[in-house]
């Protein structure tokens, strides 16, 4: 059962990584990076490392995704002219 879950998670991580690299939109790249973090956190949990899993879920999937999105908003605003 754990093997099945882990395999699914690994497939999710690899798919998320490919989407993050090849996506045209920066926003979907960032979201799929958050997805990768979520999968990695689940994998850590199955590999008996719950401490790292909690940290990865809180920082990788939560905060860093939000900060990336804020940064993308800021960069796009600076790149284009005053038009929103």
């Amino acid at each position, binding site marked *: 059962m754990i093997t099945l879950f882990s395999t699914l998670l690994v497939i999710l991580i690899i798919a998320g990584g490919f989407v993050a690299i090849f996506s045209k939109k920066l926003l979907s790249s960032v979201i799929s990076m958050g997805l990768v973090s979520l999968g990695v956190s689940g994998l850590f949990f199955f590999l008996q490392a719950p401490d790292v899993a909690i*940290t990865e879920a*809180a*920082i990788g999937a*939560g905060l860093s995704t939000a900060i990336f999105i804020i940064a993308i908003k800021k960069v796009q605003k600076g790149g284009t002219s005053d038009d929103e």
Partner: protein
Amino acid sequence: MMNDTPEMVKKVFAIFVVGILIVGFFMAFTQMPKANAVNVNNTVSRFYVMKDVDQATEMLDKGTYFNKDMVPLRNDVPYTPITFGKSANLEDGAANVVTSIVVDYRGFDTLGEVTVLFLAASGVMLVLHGQKRKIPKKRTEPSEIMYVGTRIAFAVILLFGIYVFIHGHLTPGGGFPGGAIIASGILGLFLGKQGYSPNKSGLTIFESLSGMAYVVIGIIGLIGEKSFLANFLPTGTIGDLFSAGFIALIYIAIGMKVGSELSAVTNAMIIDTEDD
């Protein structure tokens, strides 16, 4: 000032710097002195030397821990199994082994880790500080449901974050994840209301005080136990909330520090973004 120095001095100085670099580069190829061989069997548990969980579990189940075929480790220390909720006055006393290593045995390492996070946050604040907030006109306000919902969710998230770092010595988690959870709750508050702004000086004071508390706890250990960040409190019964000495105290300090630091970083980023 630098332009007045003659060319010759500059050249000599450059050759000197390059020479030091070359010497340092070739020092990497010199042979390292051989350290004295240490017999690990005499210093650590056999379970560590073995590195085979199945074998260790089997030996514990069969009670063949002191097999005659194997050389007994530490004859002076008899093996006593540690029972959750019963064993008292252990060396460390934390039910969570990771925490006992991170905070107790490698406490100075964790102080460095907190310092690294503090420097990163200082860099972000240095770059993004001093932006004035203008509430944009075009944006639509979040709805009342969003406003009330994020506030209720923030209370629950804050409670969970505090739970994670107070129970760091019992359950998985600790100060860093607890602080990050609290910071993500504050991020939710930003989403709920346009122009929300936390008490900035309050965050700064909170962060400084908790960072100082960590060092003060270390200095108390230095005075009481003759070593910086030494455990100066009784360790109690394993599995109790009031056990494992000062681990809970340090994790409360770390959790408050990380939470306020990451909230301040998020605050700086968002205020800068909304400024036109």
